[in-house]
Structures are given as C-alpha cells and as structure tokens.
C-alpha cells in the first residue's frame, strides 16, 4: 500500500529578532534556513495493516501524513502509495484514500452535515442506494441520526468528529489516514470513536495509518508501531515488541496502610514513582525478578493493595523519550 524509500522533506523558515526593532530590521534583511522535517525515511505498509505513527510534537508525523496523501511534495526520495505517486493526485488515487483531521473540519460550517454528505456523494460518485445504505449504517453505528439536520457550527466537538468520520468513510477508502482523530474529546467519546474505527476496519479490511498523542488510541487501534523522532524512523515493529523494548517488564502498583520508607533499597532498581505521602508507589519490575521483589515487598511493608499489569504503552513512550539510546 505504501512504499517509501529515503523520503525527505525540508521546510524553509525565516528568523526574526524579537521586539519592535527586530520587526523593522527583518523588513529589510531576512535570514532563512532550511529545517529538515523528515530525513531519509523508509517505510513499507501492507494491505490491511493498522499502523500507529508515534512521536512527540514536531517529530515529522504530520509532514509524513501530508506526503502520503499527496498534499505536499517530498523534497527527495521515492514514494508510492496505492501504486500512485501521491502528489500527482490522480483521480483514482483520491477516490481510494481518506484523511481524518482531528483539528480541522472538512464539513461546511454553516449548514447541516447532511448537505455536506450529499456533496461528497457526488464527488466520490457513489450510487444513491449505496450511499443510503452506507450512510444509514454509519449513522446508526455512531448514533447520530437526530444530528444530521443540525447546523455543523452548533454541534459539540464529539458530535462533529463523528460527522467528520462519516464524511471520510462514505466512499469506503482502502487507505484511511487518521491524524489525531480523538484530540480534545472526552474519555467516553474517545472510546466510542476507537471502537467504531476498529469495527469498521475489521469489516472492510481498510489499511489504517494513525497518529495520536493518546496512547490509548494506539493501544486499541494499532498492531504495529513506527516511532518518529526528529524526522527519522527510530523503531518499526509490532506493538508487543515495542512494549518489550525496555525489557520484559511489568507495571506494579502498591499501596500501604501507613507511610513507608521511600529510600529503601528495595525500590531503587524499579523506577519508583511515589505519591507524595509515601502511601502509594508505582514500579516497573523486570519479569525475571518479579517474584522475589514482590515477596520482599509483602514481607517488609504493610501492603494494603497490590496490582500488576503489563507496562502501559504510555509509560513505554515516556521512558523511551527520556532514554533514546535504548532504540
């Protein structure tokens, strides 16, 4: 679906000294520099894959998305998406992709969403009966039937996001790009959107490429993770192997009946995160030493509750950004 080799993109930026006189000076002479956003990026994505593009702000994720969808032109390197060169933007290519942008709306702001859907029906040349069927399915899945006739500017963010999803899926794209689809939504709405996308993907085998800052999105939707740091690929593999990048570890949360000695040697090797009052701690413990450590804790401290789960992907991400040498 996507083949990228040595893909790069540079942006030109200009610098201005702060303040009034800085503005005046920059009016006469400007200093420009090239800022590389993506550097020599290789990527292969096959049909039906669900891939999460991870990385901090400014890592180059959105730039990659924009190149994959043909919105911007790469500075160098080879790129083929669905057998097309994206920035040629052939009609066939555009018919087969969709991009959901959590921060932008493609719906017409001043009229009901239904009007926008009808327009999209024409743009994507969808038969009337097919259109009705798909629309009904989408609308009932997302439970938005009463909202179709409401002016978009009066919808809540969550409602609007559902409408955006419908707008992007009406033509059943083979390749779906999701750029922070759940940004700003409450937890319930986030979960709903996630479940919906997953269900949709299972049904139609859509290839999905996702960026998100919510690890729960990634955890729920992706089976493969590509980590981008400073425009370069730093990891590419299954989500399970991503989790075990930091070694095979478990995430343990312990709370106590009374404050305990936070300086004890038992905690030190396990990256302890203390609650201020010393009543609760979160630990990352290697599976190899899990049993003996747990036993030591139970023996030496007044444990009230003890819970253990695999390392949440958020902790992995957080840790990786601090210790990039692991990669």
């Amino acid at each position, binding site marked *: 679906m996507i083949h990228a080799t040595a893909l790069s993109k540079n942006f030109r930026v200009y610098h201005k000294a702060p303040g009034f006189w800085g503005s005046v000076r920059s009016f006469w002479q400007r200093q420009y520099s090239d800022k590389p956003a993506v550097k020599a990026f290789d990527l292969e994505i096959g049909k039906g894959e669900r891939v999460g593009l991870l990385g901090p702000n400014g890592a180059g994720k959105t730039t990659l998305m924009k190149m994959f*969808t043909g919105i911007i*032109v790469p500075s160098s390197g080879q790129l083929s998406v669905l057998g097309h060169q994206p920035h040629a933007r052939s009609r066939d290519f555009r018919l087969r992709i969709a*991009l959901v942008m959590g921060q932008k709306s493609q719906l017409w702001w001043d009229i009901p969403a239904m*009007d926008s859907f009808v327009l999209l029906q024409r743009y994507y*040349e969808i038969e009337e009966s097919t259109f009705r069927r798909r629309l009904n399915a989408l609308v009932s899945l997302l439970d938005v039937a009463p909202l179709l006739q409401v002016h978009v500017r009066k919808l809540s963010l969550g409602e609007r996001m559902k409408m955006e999803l419908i707008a992007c899926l009406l033509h059943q794209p083979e390749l779906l790009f999701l750029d922070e689809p759940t940004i700003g939504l409450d937890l319930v709405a986030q979960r709903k959107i996630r479940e919906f996308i997953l269900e949709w993907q299972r049904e139609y085998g859509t290839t999905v490429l996702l960026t998100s800052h919510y690890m729960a999105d990634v955890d729920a939707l992706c089976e493969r993770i590509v980590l981008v740091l400073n425009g370069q690929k730093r990891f590419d593999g299954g989500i399970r192997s991503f989790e075990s990048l930091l070694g095979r570890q478990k995430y343990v949360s312990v709370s106590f009946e009374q404050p305990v000695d936070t300086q004890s040697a038992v905690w030190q090797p396990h990256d302890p995160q203390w609650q201020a009052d010393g009543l609760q701690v979160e630990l990352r413990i290697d599976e190899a030493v899990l049993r003996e450590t747990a036993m030591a804790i139970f023996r030496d401290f007044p444990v009230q509750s003890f819970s253990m789960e695999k390392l949440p992907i958020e902790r992995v991400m957080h840790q990786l950004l601090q210790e990039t040498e692991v990669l």
Partner: protein
Amino acid sequence: MAGTLKAEWHKWWATVVINWRRLLAYKLNFLLLVIGPVLVFFFIRYQVWAGIYRLEGVDTLQGYTFEQMLAYQVWVMIVGFLALGFNGMNLAEEIRLGRISSYLLYPFGFWPFQMASFLAFQGLQLLVATVTLLAVWAMGWVQLQPLALLQGFSLAACVGLFWFQANFVIGILAFWLEETWVLRVMLVTLSQFFSGALIPLELFPKALAQALHWLPFPYLTYMPVKVFMGTYTGSLWQAFAVLLLWTLLVFGLARVVWRQGIHNYTGAGI
C-alpha cells in the same frame, strides 16, 4: 464515457446546490449582499446625479441628458450584477489556513469547485438583476431592446468569466503571499474607475480615454453598458475578441500559477 460525463455533471450540480444552501443559510446577510448595489444606486448614484443636474441647471453633460445618465448608471448596476462575483474572497484564506487540503483530497478539482461556486452565485445574481431590471423598466428609466439585451448579456457573461478567472489567479497567489485581498481590491478600484463604472468615459480627459482603449478596462463596464443602451458604435466582434483575448490570457496565467503553487504548497498545519 457517458457515465463519467454524467458523474461530472452531478459533481458540478451538487457543488452549485451546496453553495446555494450556504448562501441562503443566512438569509438577511445574503439579502444585504445582493441588495447592496441597488441601495448604492438609489441612495448614491441617483441622488448625486440628480443633484448635479438640478443644482447646476445643466441639460447635458458631454452629450448625456439626465435621463441618459440615469440609464447609464442603471446598466452599470446590471453589468455589475452579471459580472462581479465574490469568489476569491475566501480563496486566499482557504489556502492560508490549509483548508485547501480537503479539496486536494477530493476527486473533484479545486478550480471546478471554485467555478461551480461562482456559477451558483451568478445564478442568484442573474435573478436579482432580472427583477431589478424589470422594476426599473416599469418606472420607465431604461428601454429594453431584445437584440441589445442579447448582445449585452453575452458580453457581460464574458466579462464575468474574465473577472472570475482574474480573481482566481489573485486568490491562488496566496501560495506565496500571506494576504491577497489587497491585490483584489486594487484591481477592483482601478477597474471601477477606468472602466467607466463611476462616471462615463466621455467625461474623462480625451487623451486618457483614448489610452484606456489599449487596456481591458473599458471592456469591463463601459462597452457592455453602451451595448445594453443600444448606443454602442464600435465593432461588436472586436469587443468580444478583445475580451476573450484577455480572458485567455488570465486562463493561461492561472494554469502556470496553479502548477507552481501546488508544487510549493506546504499545507500549513494541514
């Protein structure tokens, strides 16, 4: 092929319809937009010219009686309705905020989208123009001659095409410039003045009026107005030919600019 033609037609029509919806979503706003020229005509043009003729007690100004001046100004308003759209007003903003990204992803181009939006607006303007014209005609301020009407409408349609494409070129300059409305306003100011939309070219100094004929301006208002009035003496073919030539020129320009622009586009913050 017939199938795809039909599909294309559907896309155009759907775009026209959604533009109508959008324009009519705020009805009072729309009314103010289209009725503006009528207000300007009654409250400014009519009053000012009546004042000038009344206060000075003159019968003719450079061959225009008050009735003829009034008719001239009526036709200026009608040509304005037929030829001037608001496309391009939002175009630059759409590019600057990166909203154009959506159109780049649709299997329907940006130019057809803009063109269909323009046609949608012009359709409504045509309606307003017709109603206004009939009202003014009923008051006896203008005479309607079928042949002149036909010629005038065709000429005005060409002017509309020119304006659309000129606005389109200016709008897509937003790929490089942060704001393009300045260029648009400049062009409108210049052409309002030099096309005879404010005062007829006969009142201009001789040398200036002659020099103007080398530029597209007189073809944008003065000539269609004279054609509508039935007092145009030059060659009609020449008027069409010159106008089409200028239109082709901007079409070519738009093509070049679009190609370059889309290549440089960075999709600011998508």
